[in-house]
């Protein structure tokens, strides 16, 4: 990867790589500036004996230094991994505990961060024993080390968003990354005339791959907005699409809904330059896409410009992509056949229960995407099964977690845990096999959230469940906490709900959308004595008999 970037530096040094926006101020970065500003970070690594294969944590707020540190570590031969900076709402102790667990597990040799975050880390953990590299104390050089990489060397680790104990570092090799970039660029029909705008955080695989590494390797300029600033002013994405005449952007389903919710009547933008608004990283919902298209149709958004993609870090990024230039298909299915028989049977019924499922497009070149039953047999079209992927973009597994690697990377296939079906070469995603909750494009396991709540006073031990339900008004799943209690006074119930909310926010940074307290024995157990998630979810939908 480094040699491909250096070719751009040599051939087109003044070409724009990225324009980084902070507080509406743009910092343009050319390829030569990227190399020159990454060099001090690479030199800082080499001075400290950090090189080939050493893990380096990259912990920065949005800004140019984040890019320089990441590429600098890579140019030094090290293995960088981007971590999310602290959320303002998460309790700092919990945040740093989580970081330390990851730092220890991957045996990180160094942390590249700001002076502010260094001070915060060292106030919590003064003796962390890692080298710290900050922008204020870098060597004065603009020369990059001359290194050769083997294709199967690890280029970087992509950490999943799970809570502390379950973060997994996906090992991405140089060859897997380059295969993904070439194959995905072909699926997108990407050219050097394209221009990308993104607000996605770079610690998320969609942000890093689609909106940083794809542009830098393909010579496509990208404008990077702050995720923090985008949340509060989501239509800033449109401001920069218009300003830069952008052609492509990526965001999860909730991002499209958030823009629809926040665009004011009378607001107008020229969005006619866009050829792909890609919807990815959580279930793509037809109603969200339709709402987005209809709201902005007179500004240049057409059904054929909203695209879908199925992606995950374990395949570097994209496994499938809808056909650029055509509106992705939506199928209307018989809901009973889907749930009871595991068959995606198209329904023409005008009455009865139906469900709409959005196509995620076709497998990208070099990858094979199919569904398997529980015995590992390939399923025919329209049979619901686990979505599995094989091919040269597959990751090398999870760093220093062989058990977790072996559980999902088996015989050349990545077993995603997602459920879906194939139809005429197109993939349709219908749900999850396990208790993974996908909230605003980020993954969290229900059992982690339940573990976080284990000591909340007033909850009957072990009698609680975290679940999610899709809500069209937010375009994503809402987080719902169900917990049994023996308390009955309104003051005690109010306090328990507050403790549940505070604990989830402090430990994870997530905010529950609903907290419901239940009388003892409300939650349903399976024959093995565990809470039955599916039966309890069904009861929750049917009954609203909560005590608070």
């Amino acid at each position, binding site marked *: 990867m480094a040699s491909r970037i250096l070719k751009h530096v040599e051939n087109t040094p003044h070409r724009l790589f990225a324009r980084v926006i902070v507080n509406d101020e743009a910092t343009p970065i050319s390829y030569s500036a990227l190399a020159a500003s990454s060099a001090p970070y690479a030199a800082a690594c080499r001075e400290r004996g950090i090189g080939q294969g050493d893990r380096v944590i990259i912990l920065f707020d949005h800004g140019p230094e984040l890019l320089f540190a990441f590429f600098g570590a890579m140019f030094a031969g090290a293995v960088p991994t981007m971590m999310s900076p602290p959320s303002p709402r998460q309790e700092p102790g919990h945040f740093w505990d989580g970081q330390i667990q990851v730092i220890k597990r991957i045996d990180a040799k160094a942390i590249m961060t700001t002076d502010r975050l260094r001070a915060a880390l060292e106030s919590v953990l003064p003796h962390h024993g890692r080298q710290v590299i900050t922008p204020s104390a870098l060597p004065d050089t603009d020369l990059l080390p001359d290194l050769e990489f083997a294709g199967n060397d690890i280029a970087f680790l992509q950490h999943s968003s799970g809570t502390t104990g379950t973060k997994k570092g996906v090992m991405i090799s140089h060859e897997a990354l380059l295969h993904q970039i070439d194959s995905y660029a072909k699926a997108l029909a990407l050219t050097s005339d394209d221009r990308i705008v993104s607000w996605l955080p770079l610690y998320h695989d969609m942000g890093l791959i689609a909106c940083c590494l794809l542009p830098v390797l393909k010579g496509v300029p990208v404008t990077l907005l702050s995720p923090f600033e985008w949340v509060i002013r989501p239509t800033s994405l449109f401001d920069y699409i218009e300003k830069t005449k952008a052609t492509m952007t990526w965001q999860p389903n909730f991002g499209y809904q958030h823009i629809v919710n926040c665009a004011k009547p009378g607001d107008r933008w020229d969005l006619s330059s866009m050829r792909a608004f890609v919807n990815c990283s959580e279930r793509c919902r037809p109603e969200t896409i339709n709402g987005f298209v209809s709201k902005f149709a007179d500004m240049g958004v057409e059904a054929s410009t909203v695209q879908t993609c199925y992606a995950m870090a374990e395949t570097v990024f994209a496994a499938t992509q809808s056909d650029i230039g055509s509106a992705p298909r939506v199928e209307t299915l018989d809901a009973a056949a889907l749930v009871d028989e595991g068959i995606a049977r198209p329904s023409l019924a005008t009455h009865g229960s139906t469900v709409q499922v959005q196509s995620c497009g076709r497998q990208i070149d070099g990858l094979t995407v199919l569904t398997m039953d529980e015995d590992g047999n390939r399923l025919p079209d329209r049979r619901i099964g686990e979505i599995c992927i094989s091919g040269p973009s597959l990751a090398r597994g999870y760093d220093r977690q062989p058990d977790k690697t072996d559980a999902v990377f088996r015989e050349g296939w990545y077993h995603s845990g997602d459920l879906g079906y194939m139809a005429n070469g197109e993939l349709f995603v219908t749900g999850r096999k396990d208790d993974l909750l996908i909230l605003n494009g980020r993954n969290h396991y229900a059992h982690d959230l339940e573990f976080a709540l284990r000591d909340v006073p007033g909850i009957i031990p072990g009698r609680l469940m975290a679940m999610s339900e899709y809500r069209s008004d937010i375009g994503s799943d809402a987080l719902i906490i169900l917990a049994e209690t023996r308390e009955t006074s309104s003051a005690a119930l109010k306090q328990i709900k507050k403790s549940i909310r505070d604990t989830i926010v402090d430990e994870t940074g997530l*905010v529950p*959308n609903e907290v419901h307290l239940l009388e003892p024995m409300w939650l349903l157990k399976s024959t093995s004595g565990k809470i039955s998630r599916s039966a309890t979810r069904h009861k929750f939908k049917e009954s609203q008999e909560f005590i608070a």
Partner: protein
Amino acid sequence: MSADNVFQRLSQVISRELGCDISDIHRDTSADDIDGWDSLAHARLILKIEEVFDLRLPGDKLFELDNVGDLVVLVSDAQG
């Protein structure tokens, strides 16, 4: 508009936008006290407040608010 009036109107907007009981909203109420008051809901709420009060709030202050009382001060300052 007095700070009390700003608080009362803000309470109505928060209650309507977040679907919570207006009696649960006090000056020391924080986002963590209300179900679903996450960063996306905060953005929608700010837009609604700007519409109702016909003003624009400074973007850099919007994530520094500790509670509803801080929001009252921010809106009052923006009204001039």
